[in-house]
């Protein structure tokens, strides 16, 4: 009799970890990216007990896990959920948290913490993750009592996914996750200090409409705010109503079809000549969901010098931050575009402007040399585009390969392009592709990575082996830290300090040791034989593709220069 009573008691009570698991189920979380450890053992025990509720992905380094969560969030449009233990587990997540913050990726990160009683004593595996992550999170919490855990989890998801998305850290002391709570707890919340403004002010929309009617040389700058807001259809309608040329930021690629007649391609440091000249010469610049990053604007003195600037952004702090703005519109991109699309369009005359733009597009396109048998990276990306019919999910690290992918892979829809824009994180592309593939099992996911970046997170090949995820890792191998090498060539008189890496692992054998098929390609002929086959099958692959080391990314705006001062433009 006695034993029976105690069992009943146990089922009626829940630990903090159980409450966490319940809260995650409430949030319809289906995938967790996490790494167990001392301070999260109660949480992992609760996950074990709730078996079947989540697909748990175990990376081999926490950084791999959080980048995978970012890739998952980018492609699925749902928040990525990450668990790390205290101390080193939490600090290994820091790069991914900062990356998600810069690119507005919704993440909810749970970190274990040492028990409340020993916080602040430099206990085993203790780190001040609140202090460390405060400047790189949208918000962070340390749970102080078990009763507040369900509410905090709910708030964390709300904050991460609404307004301008971003990462939220919830730090959970071990005693809170293991304490038993018998009573039901209230998870309702009220955040008076967080009320994002999602609807535009009609007066400002009127101003934008007036400016559009008056403009002779308008241009739209499409940023990733459009992708986050799911506003691509609205953008298309807007652009077609007013017949506006569109350029995108690096992260905005895919928000507007790259092959459309009105598309100018990407703008910025390695953007197209037509896009940058349009930004330089325009009389009306409509920025939708871009934060005017310095890699986009170049020298601010020469950025859109004669333009009226309209800026639509859900984050008011972005408006006027870098570029003075005459028509500020604080709103979600979708709502703002919907209201401007309701306005009547009349008396537009952009003929001369469009003729100038088309002239630049056809006369000064992206270009590269084509040797006889060696592979140039630009051609490689063109081939990937061709073989995947432009439908793949493409992820990258930062650097030359990233810029070539941005230039030569044309995205027709959003959520297909996953790259580390703001933070420029090496080692991002491959794990992000794992998350992207998990979010969309029907698409081909190609991680276009450099030989440098891949070596930062290549241990995640374990996940491909474990899950048989058909991710294709395409190493654009120039045996160098390419972008560093390019800058040293251009701006440091060819002093290649520590940028040439000619001692490398045998990537084919490395892949095979993880039971992932590996391929070696070093000529156009071998590429055309191997690549279409590999991209079409349902196996994972690592492709070590040797490209010309000396190839540089052009055109380019040198540091300190304006958009009109591009170098490496091929003019007729």
């Amino acid at each position: 009799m006695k034993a029976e009573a105690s069992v009943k008691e146990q089922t009626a009570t829940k630990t903090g970890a159980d409450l966490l698991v319940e809260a995650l189920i409430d949030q319809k979380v289906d995938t967790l990216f996490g790494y167990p450890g001392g301070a999260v053992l109660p949480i992992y025990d609760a996950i074990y007990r709730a078996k079947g509720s989540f697909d748990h992905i175990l990376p081999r380094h926490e950084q791999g896990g959080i980048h995978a969560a970012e890739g998952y969030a980018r492609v699925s449009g749902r928040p990525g959920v990450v668990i790390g233990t205290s101390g080193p587990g939490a600090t290994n997540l820091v790069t991914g948290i900062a990356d998600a913050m810069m690119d507005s990726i919704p993440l909810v990160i749970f970190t274990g913490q040492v028990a409340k009683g020993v916080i602040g004593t430099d206990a085993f595996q203790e780190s001040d993750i609140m202090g460390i992550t405060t400047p790189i999170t949208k918000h962070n919490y340390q749970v102080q009592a078990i009763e507040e855990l369900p509410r905090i989890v709910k708030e964390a998801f709300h904050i991460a996914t609404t307004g301008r998305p971003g990462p939220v850290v919830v730090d959970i002391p071990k005693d809170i996750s293991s304490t038993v709570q018998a009573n039901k707890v209230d998870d309702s919340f009220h955040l008076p200090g967080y009320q994002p403004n999602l609807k535009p002010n009609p007066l400002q929309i009127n101003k934008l409409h007036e400016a559009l009617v008056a403009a002779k040389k308008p241009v739209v700058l499409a940023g990733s705010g459009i992708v986050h807001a799911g506003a691509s259809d609205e953008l298309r309608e807007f652009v077609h109503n007013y017949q506006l040329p569109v350029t995108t930021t690096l992260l905005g690629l895919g928000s507007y079809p790259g092959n459309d007649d009105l598309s100018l391609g990407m703008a910025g440091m390695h953007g197209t000549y037509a896009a940058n000249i349009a930004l330089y010469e325009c009389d009306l610049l409509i920025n939708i969901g871009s934060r005017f990053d310095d890699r986009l604007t170049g020298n601010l003195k020469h950025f859109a010098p004669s333009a009226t600037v309209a800026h639509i952004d859900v984050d008011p702090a972005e408006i006027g931050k870098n570029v003075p703005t005459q028509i500020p519109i604080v709103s979600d991109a979708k709502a703002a575009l919907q209201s401007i699309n309701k306005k009547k369009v009349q008396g537009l005359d952009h003929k001369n402007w469009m003729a100038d733009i088309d002239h630049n597009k056809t006369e000064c396109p992206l270009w590269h040399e084509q040797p006889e048998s060696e592979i140039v990276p630009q051609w490689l990306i063109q081939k990937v585009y061709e073989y995947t019919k432009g439908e793949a999910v493409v992820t990258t690290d930062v650097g030359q390969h990233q810029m070539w992918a941005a230039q030569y892979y044309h995205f027709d829809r959003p959520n297909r392009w996953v790259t580390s824009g703001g933070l420029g994180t090496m080692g991002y592309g491959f794990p992000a592709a794992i998350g992207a593939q998990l979010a969309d099992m029907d698409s081909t996911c190609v991680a276009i990575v450099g030989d440098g970046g891949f070596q930062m997170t290549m241990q995640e090949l374990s996940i491909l082996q474990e899950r048989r995820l058909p991710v294709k890792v395409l190493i654009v191998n120039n045996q160098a830290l390419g972008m560093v090498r390019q800058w040293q060539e251009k701006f440091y008189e060819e002093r290649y300090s520590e940028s040439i890496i000619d001692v490398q692992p045998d990537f084919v054998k490395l892949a095979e040791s993880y039971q992932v098929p590996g391929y070696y390609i070093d000529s156009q002929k071998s590429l055309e034989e191997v690549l279409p086959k590999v991209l079409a099958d349902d196996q994972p692959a690592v492709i070590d593709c040797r490209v010309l080391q000396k190839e540089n990314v052009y055109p380019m705006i040198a540091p300190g220069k304006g958009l009109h001062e591009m170098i490496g433009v091929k003019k007729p």
Partner: protein
Amino acid sequence: MRRIVTAIVHNRSGVLNRVTGLLAKRQFNIESISVGRTETEGVSKMTFVVEVEDERKLEQLTKQLNKQIDVLKVSDITDKAIVARELAMVKVISNPQIRNEIQGIIEPFRASIIDVSKESVTVQVTGKSDKVDALIELLRPYGIKELARTGLTAFTRGHQPQVAEFKPYSLLK
């Protein structure tokens, strides 16, 4: 330009760190900060005196502060009718002979002596920062052993005078 900015915040651990960290990260120079509870339970008020370059920097400051989830309201009250006070305590070297002299100096400032010892007196003064500065300068020749200031705390007056809106006059229009 020197601005007085107030922020109403949730009284939670880490909020001060969050706010000062934000200002440091964005290179705003804080002259003083004072924090204390308000009439509402769980809500505190911070008063910052900051030196900012221009209007745009100031706009960024208030917008970035407003973005914080624990920040409920941010106001730049520099140009409003405000009540602003600072408290300072000054320990001045003084023997019994010159104590009266010090008393005479501080009287016009409505400051008071709050502690006396054989070699020193401690003066408490409240008021606007420039008044506090002026008194400190007067006491300095006697030898200041210790000085502590609270930083400014401020809010707007109950009644804001109506300033007539003059239209900008231009010869060209």
